[in-house]
């Protein structure tokens, strides 16, 4: 039968770095174990296993809701059975970089809501921070436990060029996807147990333990045995599966806004045995919807009075209110400066060069090079509202040009990265598809994570957009232990 490398001849011009195969067509050392196993598999068994995976995901309802689709529609996120493998050495360097980056980001958020040293020093332009829609004046002078604002960060990382890593964005609000990381591993172990007997794959299933530990570490001062809850917008939210999954795995209540109330600046949940005090809320609701008294008055999802209880220090919100200012695309170019300013270190992880279209020079350059660039909305997320120049038609580019000209400050542009690829099952067989990586970084008493993260894969040929809302899939991510 054909081997995985034969069915997937890597173009010798090697426009993209492939995780499995070198430009000359050799299997990279860290994929040897997998490829020799794969070559011994019959295609029929592989097909059967892939169908089994679909059926299992469907039956267990591991789905996500798609916005704009018919009401309540649920879809499976396509799961690819070929894992993305990261050698231990590479992971260690990534981990160091992530730890450094998230520390600096937490220090930055604390600073801009307190003394604003970094703004005074002129290292980050003050108006970019203070007039940012994500900057929450309500948070000025509010102390949070351990000075941790982003207890849970999902940092999107891509590999480009000759294989160097870049941070694409820092998700510090309500990053999702960790449940798929765990479910993907469970699925792989169920489908192919023999693979895990042969390869030393670092485990990831203890993530909920680390998460609970982290959430307890940021409880309000003096609370010895904190009650932790997960706050969800409800069962129609696209990430509801994950909310329920994490609550169940941590053994804590999954609450909706209507289950909580505030009395005397303390938060309680309504239980069958009467009100019960809540100390830490892992909230999966955006700032705007948390408290109808403080933010959007039309929010049905939030808890009236929550902000007052929070400001009084009687409850911890994770992540804190107002973290969005630090993962904003207009602040992103300054993260390197934050590392230097707060930690006195050189940043380990690269940023993607970014043109800020509010600057006239950058704007002029971008407008001249739209067909080569990726243009993103500063406040966009989920792969909505972006232009991938090389993959767009003339008409799409012209349409986007008008939108940029109407309000350039809403956009940034970046060179189109040649994202690395990984062999992936597609209709026609196996072919290289672009991938990214979202490790989940937990900050409590110290910074911790499980090795790896969620690998997303763009299933359309040539596509660089990996978001599940845009038809992306996922893979199991292996960090090989030495």
């Amino acid at each position, binding site marked *: 039968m054909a081997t995985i490398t034969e069915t997937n001849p890597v173009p010798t011009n090697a426009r993209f770095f492939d995780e499995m195969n070198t430009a000359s067509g050799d299997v990279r050392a860290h994929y040897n174990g997998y490829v020799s196993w794969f070559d011994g598999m019959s295609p029929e068994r592989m097909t059967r296993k892939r169908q089994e995976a679909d059926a299992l995901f*469907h*039956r*267990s*309802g591991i789905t996500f809701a798609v916005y704009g689709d018919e009401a309540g529609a649920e879809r499976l996120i396509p799961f690819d059975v070929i894992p993305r493998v990261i050698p231990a050495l590479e992971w260690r360097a990534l981990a160091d970089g992530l730890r450094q980056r998230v520390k600096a980001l937490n220090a930055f958020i604390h600073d801009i809501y307190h003394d604003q040293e970094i703004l005074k020093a002129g290292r980050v332009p003050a108006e970019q921070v203070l007039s940012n829609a994500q900057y929450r004046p309500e948070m000025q002078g509010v102390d949070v436990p351990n000075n941790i604002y982003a207890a849970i960060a999902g940092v999107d990382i891509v590999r480009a060029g000759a294989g160097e890593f870049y941070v694409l964005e820092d998700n510090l609000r309500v990053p999702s996807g960790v449940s798929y990381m765990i479910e993907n591993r469970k699925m792989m172990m169920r489908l192919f147990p023999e693979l895990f007997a042969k390869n030393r794959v670092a485990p990831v299933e203890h993530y909920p333990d680390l998460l609970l530990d982290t959430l307890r570490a940021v409880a309000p001062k003096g609370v010895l045995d904190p009650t932790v809850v997960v706050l969800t917008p*409800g*069962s129609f939210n696209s990430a509801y*599966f994950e909310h*329920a*999954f994490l*609550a*169940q795995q941590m053994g804590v*209540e*999954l*609450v*909706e806004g*209507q*289950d909580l*109330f*505030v*009395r005397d600046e303390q938060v*309680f*949940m*309504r*239980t*069958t*045995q*009467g*009100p019960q005090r809540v100390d830490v809320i892992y909230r999966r609701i955006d700032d705007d919807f948390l408290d109808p008294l403080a933010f959007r008055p039309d929010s049905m999802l939030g808890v009236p009075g929550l902000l007052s209880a929070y400001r009084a220090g009687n409850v911890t919100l994770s992540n804190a209110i107002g973290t969005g200012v630090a993962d904003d695309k207009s602040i992103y170019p300054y993260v390197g400066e934050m590392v230097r300013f707060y930690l006195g270190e050189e940043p380990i992880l690269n940023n993607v060069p970014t043109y800020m279209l509010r600057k006239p020079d950058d704007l002029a350059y971008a407008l001249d090079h739209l067909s080569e660039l990726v243009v993103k909305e500063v406040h966009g997320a989920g792969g909505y509202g972006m232009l991938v120049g090389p993959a767009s038609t003339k008409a799409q580019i012209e349409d986007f040009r008008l939108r940029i000209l109407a309000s350039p400050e809403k956009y940034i542009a970046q060179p189109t990265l040649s994202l690395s690829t990984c062999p992936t099952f597609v209709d026609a067989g196996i072919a290289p598809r672009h991938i990214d990586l979202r490790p989940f970084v937990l900050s409590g008493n110290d910074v911790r994570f499980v090795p790896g993260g969620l690998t997303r894969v763009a299933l359309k040929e040539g596509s660089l957009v990996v978001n599940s809302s845009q038809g992306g899939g996922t893979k199991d991510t292996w960090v090989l232990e030495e």
Partner: protein
Amino acid sequence: MLSRTADHLYWMARYIERAENLARMLDVNNRMQLLPQSEREVERLWRETLDSVGVLDSYYASHENRVVPSEVVHFMALDRKNPGSIYSCLRAARENAHAVRGTLTSELWETINATWLELRGYDISQMGADELDAFFEWVKLRSHQFRGVSFATMMRDEANCFLRLGTFIERADNTARILDVKYNFIAEAPRRDDAGEYYQWSALLHSVSAFEIYRKAYRDQITPARVAELLVLRNDMPRSLAYCTSEMTAFLETVANQRSKETQRRSGELAASLRYGRIDDVLETGLHQYLTRFIVRINDIGNRIASDFLLPVTA
């Protein structure tokens, strides 16, 4: 536990139980209409069935006031627009389960989810009378599976109590309704030979899975009074009113809170009256009247459970 969680568990169980009992009721009607009888009688059977579950008006509204047996069956079993159909009950059960999936064991969630996915696969417009039989059988099996999986996998905690409360309160209500409509129907039917009557009673017993129990318990021919006794008063018959109310009372005691004293008292009183009741007294009052009063009392307890445990306590 969260009041809202308890509410979803309770209603999830109620909807599954309701779907099962609807399947039983429709199944027994299908059997009853096979007996030689006039068209008017058959029509009356279906009209009373619709009435017993409170959907006669909405049926009339969508069917030009005409009772056509096959249309009634479709309406009660598979009509997506009828909120009381088996289809809608299983959908509601699944929605409630989905809202608290983290509280359910994964086996239980998968059982309910798989039921729903399979139900959606049924081609509703294409289902013939013969396939309906199999469909009712499937609904019952799925309900059995739900109970079995929850019994075998769930922790014996509050979640389990609210789930069982939902099952037994719904079953008590449904048994009372099935018995009421069928008992009347047979009693008021034109006098027929013994064989005809035998089939009527045995169909009723079959519908509540009580035919074999009857044989075991009485070892004698089927009489209306004994049928009523079995379904109302027998403590060892798992679908009887006595059994359901005594289970309800026990689960209520386990979850009791400061507000629930009166609810427990009413439930206990109702259970005791059934436990120590005599069928002669019941029949003297008139079974119909007795069952009507029972349904009112069980609804009252249902409302009290909602306000004691399930509705959000206000600050």
